[in-house]
């Protein structure tokens, strides 16, 4: 009996369940028919209400810092506003308050949105002022959204703009180191999957598809204090002499690091209205005929032959010399002088006589070793190599002019690199703009000859030299003035480039500086009058800021007896 019951019960139960399932499926089908055919809007609304979206997680671009960690470029989050035209156009009354907050014409916005009415995403305004963003947020309009983005600020503005460059609206480097190190600075934006409701609010964070990686910081060799100083003084000089442009470069002799690099004209990278004239980092991208600042390298080449010494006599009478029909002349007739005085007085005639005694290949080789005609290797966008023609194509007069800096084109940075090698006993280092670069020195000149040339350069700021204005109180200064006429389509015009290149302190050089002032129109154009004073003011400040001890102190010197090292006062 119990067997019969256990056999019967499942059958009746089976029918019972079948009936329930049947009723259920009828109900489901009825509902489905209802939804698909009768009440179609309901499903559509529900579908739109919840949707799975992948959104980009913005990431921060790395900061750019100076050698002491001071910020030179900083990214800070700001809001940008975008709209979904499909939604916003359904309630046209919302456009008016939105336009008021943004300070634009409502009709203008409406026209723009109508043109793009099929799209779901239209930027209205990028990088809003925080107050405007807060106002938009408080309006709580449908179809209007704020998106976090990063904006780049450059606290030093026009002072560092040439070195650093700038980014475009999408945070991609366009100029300068922002461009050169874009991959390093730029982070990788992440991706997250979320569920949003129809108002665009995030309902649920489903998963992180890709973690965002912030960009790396970049430390420069630039010292912001020196950069400010050099920029201020350069601007003052360029204004005073009505010059067309100018550059100053300061290098650390012992490491080849660029401490300051400034140009005029400049621009403010925080504003988008930029004049293309001011964009170039002239110290790296523009070349010029250096003039007399090249003489030390011609002399170095002569000393290398062994036929010339610092005291070898040269007769410059009558102050002019004729080479292949061209007349090369001095400022005045210096009469019989020696090689050291050639540098002190900047004699073109003596330089010509030396150059014509040299093998073209040897002279070319000396210039080449100092890096002329070669890129300086900073990796800076638009870096120029300058022009140094191969010695096989030199004519005789060309060889003569090369000795006093014509027929060769250099950048300000190349000149600084070469002078740093003269200052550091013939050790040439590639200049670097970014910290951590290893630039092992290459020996390009015999240390004895380098010291001899450096000693000649010190006479330039001496009582009879052309560069007295480059003197720095309490320090010994070595350098060379340069004044070159600018080449134009019709030969050499009566426009000039004034320059000064030098290093301090002479007893143990730490800093090398090159000043170049292009086309001064105020009547003065000699390197010794226009460029040398600028060199002096910049170096005076730089030596003080960097705590470099004086080597030519005439005041009182006291011995600090019994002061423990590191103990102040």
């Amino acid at each position, binding site marked *: 009996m119990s067997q019969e019951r256990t056999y019967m019960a499942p059958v009746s139960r089976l029918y019972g369940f079948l009936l329930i399932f049947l009723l259920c499926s009828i109900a489901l089908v009825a509902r489905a028919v209802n939804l698909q055919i009768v009440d179609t809007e309901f499903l559509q609304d529900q579908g739109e209400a919840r949707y799975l979206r992948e959104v980009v997680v913005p990431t921060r671009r790395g*900061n750019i810092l100076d050698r002491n960690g001071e910020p030179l470029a900083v990214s800070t989050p700001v809001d940008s506003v975008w709209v979904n035209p499909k939604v916003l156009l359904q309630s046209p009354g919302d456009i008016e308050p939105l336009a008021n907050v943004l300070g634009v014409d409502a009709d203008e916005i409406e026209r723009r949105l109508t043109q793009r009415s099929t799209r779901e995403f239209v930027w209205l305004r990028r990088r809003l002022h925080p107050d405007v963003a807060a106002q938009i947020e408080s309006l709580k309009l449908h179809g209007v959204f704020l998106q*976090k983005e990063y904006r780049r600020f450059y606290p*030093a503005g026009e002072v560092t703009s040439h070195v650093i460059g700038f980014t475009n609206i999408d945070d991609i480097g366009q100029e300068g180191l922002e461009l050169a190190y874009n991959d390093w600075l730029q982070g990788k934006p992440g991706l997250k999957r979320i569920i949003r409701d129809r108002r665009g609010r995030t309902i649920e964070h489903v998963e992180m598809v890709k973690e965002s990686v912030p960009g790396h910081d970049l430390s420069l060799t630039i010292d912001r204090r020196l950069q400010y100083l050099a920029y201020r003084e350069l601007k003052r000089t360029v204004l005073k002499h009505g010059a067309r442009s100018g550059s100053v470069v300061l290098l650390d002799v012992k490491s080849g690091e660029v401490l300051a690099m400034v140009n005029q004209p400049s621009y403010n990278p925080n504003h988008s209205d930029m004049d293309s004239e001011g964009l170039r980092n002239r110290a790296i991208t523009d070349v010029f005929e250096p003039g007399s600042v090249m003489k030390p390298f011609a002399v170095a080449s002569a000393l290398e032959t062994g036929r010339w010494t610092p005291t070898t006599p040269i007769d410059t009478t009558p102050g002019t010399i004729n080479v292949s029909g061209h007349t090369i002349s001095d400022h005045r007739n210096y009469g019989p002088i020696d090689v050291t005085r050639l540098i002190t007085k900047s004699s073109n005639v003596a330089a010509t006589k030396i150059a014509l005694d040299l093998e073209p290949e040897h002279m070319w080789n000396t210039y080449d070793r100092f890096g002329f005609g070669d890129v300086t290797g900073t990796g800076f966008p638009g870096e120029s190599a300058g022009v140094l023609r191969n010695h096989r194509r030199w004519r005789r007069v060309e060889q003569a002019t090369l000795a006093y800096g014509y027929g060769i084109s250099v950048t300000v940075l190349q000149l600084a690199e070469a002078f740093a090698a003269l200052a550091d006993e013939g050790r040439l280092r590639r200049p670097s703009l970014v910290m951590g670069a290893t630039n092992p020195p290459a020996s390009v000149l015999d240390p004895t000859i380098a010291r001899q040339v450096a000693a000649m350069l010190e006479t330039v700021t001496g009582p009879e030299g052309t560069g007295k204005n480059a003197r720095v*109180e309490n320090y010994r200064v070595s350098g060379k003035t340069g004044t070159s006429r600018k080449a134009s389509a019709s030969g050499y015009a009566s426009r000039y480039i004034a320059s000064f290149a030098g290093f301090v302190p002479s007893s143990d050089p730490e800093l090398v500086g090159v000043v170049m002032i292009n086309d001064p129109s105020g009547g003065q154009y000699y390197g010794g009058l226009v460029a040398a004073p600028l060199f002096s003011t910049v170096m005076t400040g730089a030596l003080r800021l960097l705590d470099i001890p004086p080597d030519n102190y005439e*005041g009182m*010197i006291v*011995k600090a007896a019994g002061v423990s090292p590191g103990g102040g006062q």
Partner: protein
Amino acid sequence: MNARLIVILIALAAVICSTLGVVYARHESRRAAVQLGLLEDQRDEIIAEWSRLQLEQAWLADASHVESKAREHLGMEIPEQALILVVEKP
């Protein structure tokens, strides 16, 4: 029979437990997601604040700014030659 009932009851209990577990885990994950969102906002806020402070500090520490303060407000100047003593290291 008894044994089967016990198994079914245990299974039922397990189902209920796991259901509650799922509900709890789901709730926990939402709570954590909200928490994450808040913390992320907080982090972004702090980073934003930090970058603003950096900018402000850069402006205040600007050499020309400091120099004008020192000269105009504090009446400082670079000492004359005669007033400078150079101290040599022993």
